């Protein structure tokens, strides 16, 4: 192997979305040598698409609001497999983290008294579920993600982190002690392959919604970080838990925010009936996302869907009036006019549940360090590896994420990872050396694609993978379908390993990136399939027709999928918050 160019940093963050930029800011401000690698220019990261807002008890709309109520809602939303110490940390630290964003300049919408505007979102209640709907989701119109991401990038411009923009991380470099020493990356413009060494590597690579044929996710959401961790032999947690968002625009997949229902919109079937009143008499259209998505599918399956094919339902907004729509949901008006050819001021939007969010990911401690299990089933920290944001599973979302909680997760745990790494570096964690053969192992996959001379095309294999996941691991799951899906995936693995990259150019070679992304999509899809088959119960987003009940006796736990022997282990959920009494599992009713 030719000698690789090498760069060295104290902290390396793979990912320039909300989580990565928040971690980078913390580290760069502390004066450590910090680098961010991002395969797209940071403001093009998927966080830019987030619409509705960031949920946090800053007590603007309701002066009595309390982070403990938010915690209760989040624990309940997670169907009780969210870790209560992590949720407690997120909900209690949240206000500080949101105020910091405001101080950096985030252009939040405002209330008459000049405070941050908050809107109602699904699953949010007052007084531990007893006080009715809460308005807790802080918003910048319906462009909160855009405002948040640009603000964080602006703050980073000020703080002086090194940005390796349009660099693509290929694989982790793992040394003989099992510690992570950095990554192998491609500088996209030139095709140069570089070893980026670091004392601490943070995977903040976002989600992987592109494993499904129909998704709200950007084209770049291919689960690269999770793929890298799996290839390095590290486990992933609760990866069977995929959120299907109730309101993807039918046909296009593009999301319209839950904020539409927060502002007073509601769903109707072909008879014009507001059907959520039947499924969730109290919260109605603002029940948990898993609940709403399943209700919609049932309406469609029972013949009450809309349109010629009866394959979607409608989201009605016109009754809110043009003024409210223009000021609160301007982006939605644009998207609906462009992608649904429906003007919400007059017509309802055709919507269907669409893959949206990966609740699972790389298991981490509350402060971001990645975890595996030792032989006795005890947590064991992975030296040198951290994760934050959608790629991580800390776990605050458990089996079902509440709207607006992801953006909060990004900034709270991005910041926490930064703080932790700063401390660790100050205490002098040593630089981990990687040998020639460690580097070669990390380089192997790229070398395989570069040497390929014939085989199937990346685009065709990707489509097959996405269709398989859509058919066998969607909103409702059964043993039979999942078994079939797993067989299809096994066949696909062989074929992907022999697939062909025809374009070997070094200049901005996007075909090579798509090939490398296909490997990652596959890793995430396969882990999802095995873990979904293993969890024989229904919980949160994981709904099995052959095991319709939640099974707390056997499955009130995280799943942990180990790639080397394709094994699914169990990991204890944390029920020990530090400052509040534990929230005991209850039946989940909305």
């Amino acid at each position, binding site marked *: 192997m030719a000698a690789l160019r090498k760069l060295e940093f104290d902290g390396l963050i793979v990912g320039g979305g909300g989580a990565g930029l928040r971690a980078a800011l913390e580290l760069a401000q502390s004066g450590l040598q910090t680098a961010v690698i991002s395969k*797209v220019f940071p403001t093009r990261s998927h966080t830019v698409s987030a619409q509705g807002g960031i949920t946090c008890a800053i007590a603007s709309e309701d002066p009595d609001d309390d982070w403990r109520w938010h915690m209760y809602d989040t624990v309940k939303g997670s169907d009780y497999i969210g870790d209560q110490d992590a949720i407690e940390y997120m909900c209690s630290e949240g206000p500080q983290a949101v105020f910091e964003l405001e*101080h950096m*300049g985030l252009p939040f919408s405002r209330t008459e008294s000049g*405070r941050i505007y908050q809107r109602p979102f699904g699953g949010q209640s007052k007084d531990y579920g007893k006080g009715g709907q809460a308005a807790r989701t802080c918003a910048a119109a319906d462009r909160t993600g855009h405002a948040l991401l640009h603000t964080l990038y602006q*703050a980073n411009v000020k703080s002086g982190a090194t940005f390796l923009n349009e660099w693509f991380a290929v694989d982790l470099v793992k040394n003989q002690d099992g510690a992570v020493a950095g990554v192998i990356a491609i500088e996209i413009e030139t095709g140069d392959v570089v070893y980026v060494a670091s004392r601490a590597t943070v995977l903040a690579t976002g989600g992987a919604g592109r494993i499904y044929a129909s998704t709200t996710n950007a084209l770049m959401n291919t689960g690269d970080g999770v793929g890298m961790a799996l290839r390095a032999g590290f486990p992933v947690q609760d990866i069977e838990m995929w959120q299907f968002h109730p309101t993807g625009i039918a046909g296009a997949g593009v999301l319209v925010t839950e904020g539409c229902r927060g502002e007073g919109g509601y769903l109707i079937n072909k008879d014009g009936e507001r059907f959520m009143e039947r499924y969730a008499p109290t919260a109605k259209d603002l029940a948990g996302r898993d609940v709403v998505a399943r209700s919609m599918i049932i309406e469609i399956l029972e013949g009450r869907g809309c349109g010629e094919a009866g394959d979607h339902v409608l989201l009605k907004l016109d009754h809110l009036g043009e003024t409210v729509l223009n000021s609160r949901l301007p982006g939605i008006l644009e998207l609906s006019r462009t992608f649904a050819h429906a003007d919400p001021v007059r017509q309802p939007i055709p919507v269907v549940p669409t893959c949206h969010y990966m609740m699972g990911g790389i298991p981490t401690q509350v402060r971001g360090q990645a975890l595996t299990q030792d032989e006795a089933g005890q947590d064991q920290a992975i030296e040198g590896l951290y994760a934050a944001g959608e790629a991580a599973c800390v776990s605050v979302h458990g089996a079902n994420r509440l709207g607006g909680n992801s953006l909060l997760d990004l900034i709270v745990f991005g910041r926490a990872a930064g703080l932790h790494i700063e401390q660790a570096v100050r205490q002098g964690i040593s630089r981990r050396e990687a040998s020639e053969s460690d580097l070669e192992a990390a380089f192997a996959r790229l070398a395989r694609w570069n040497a390929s001379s014939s085989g199937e095309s990346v685009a065709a294999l990707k489509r097959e993978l996405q269709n398989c996941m859509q058919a066998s691991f969607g909103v409702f799951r059964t043993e039979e379908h999942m078994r079939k899906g797993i067989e299809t995936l096994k066949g696909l693995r062989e074929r992907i390993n022999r697939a062909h990259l025809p374009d070997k150019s070094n200049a901005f070679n996007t075909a090579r990136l798509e090939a490398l992304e296909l490997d990652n999509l596959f890793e995430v899809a396969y882990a999802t399939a095995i873990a979904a088959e293993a969890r024989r119960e229904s919980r949160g987003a994981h709904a099995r027709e052959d095991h319709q009940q939640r099974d707390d006796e056997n499955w009130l736990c995280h799943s942990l999928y180990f790639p080397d022997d394709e094994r699914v282990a169990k990991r204890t959920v944390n029920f020990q918050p530090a400052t509040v009494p534990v929230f005991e599992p209850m039946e989940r009713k909305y």
Partner: protein
Amino acid sequence: MQVSVYRYDPDVDEAPEMRDMSIELPEGKELMVLDLLERLKEQDPSLSYRRSCREGVCGSDGINMNGLNGLACITPVSQVAKRGKLTLRPLPGLPVIRDLVVDMSQFFDQFEKVRPYLINDQPPPAQERLQSPEERAELDGLYECILCGCCSTACPSFWWNPDKFVGPAGLLQAYRFLADSRDTASAERLRDLEDPFSVFRCRGIMNCVNVCPKGLNPTRAIGKIRGLLVKQGT
């Protein structure tokens, strides 16, 4: 349908050329130009362009379609194609890296030059800084910029002086902070802009306004900056 695409791979090609590709369009389904590109890329995986969100919010896929700058992902083919023909080129005026991918460094350098971040010399309060809905409304039409570059690469003044004229996107951004009731650095910001080039090279041609895919109006922002500079000068 005939699509003529600007192709250049410095690794392989001596010089750029326009290459024709033909493609069947599905009946009764509206395609965006990005969908078309994705289909062309299946035919020829070496075709290179940037894209990510496919919904007009990330700013990746600014390109030139039949002479007009815009985002491929929210531009219907039917809107730009003329008599069944479509010509796709990279954004004009910037160095081409490959095919439809341009080097945006000059564009981002100008963005960074305006110090695109909030500056406030007071210690922050324990909660948020207050801002009235009216003050916040001053930022509408400014903060939504997605840095796609469509405007600056349609601006003749930027083509001639990309190193000295901040350009419409950068100036929109500059005004975004001048207009923010929470920012205390107006005087310094204006001082940075008062030379003959940074702002004053704008000739008011409005190309920027015509192409902005987010419907923003850099010319108006530039006018406001000029107004502030004049006021400060008196």
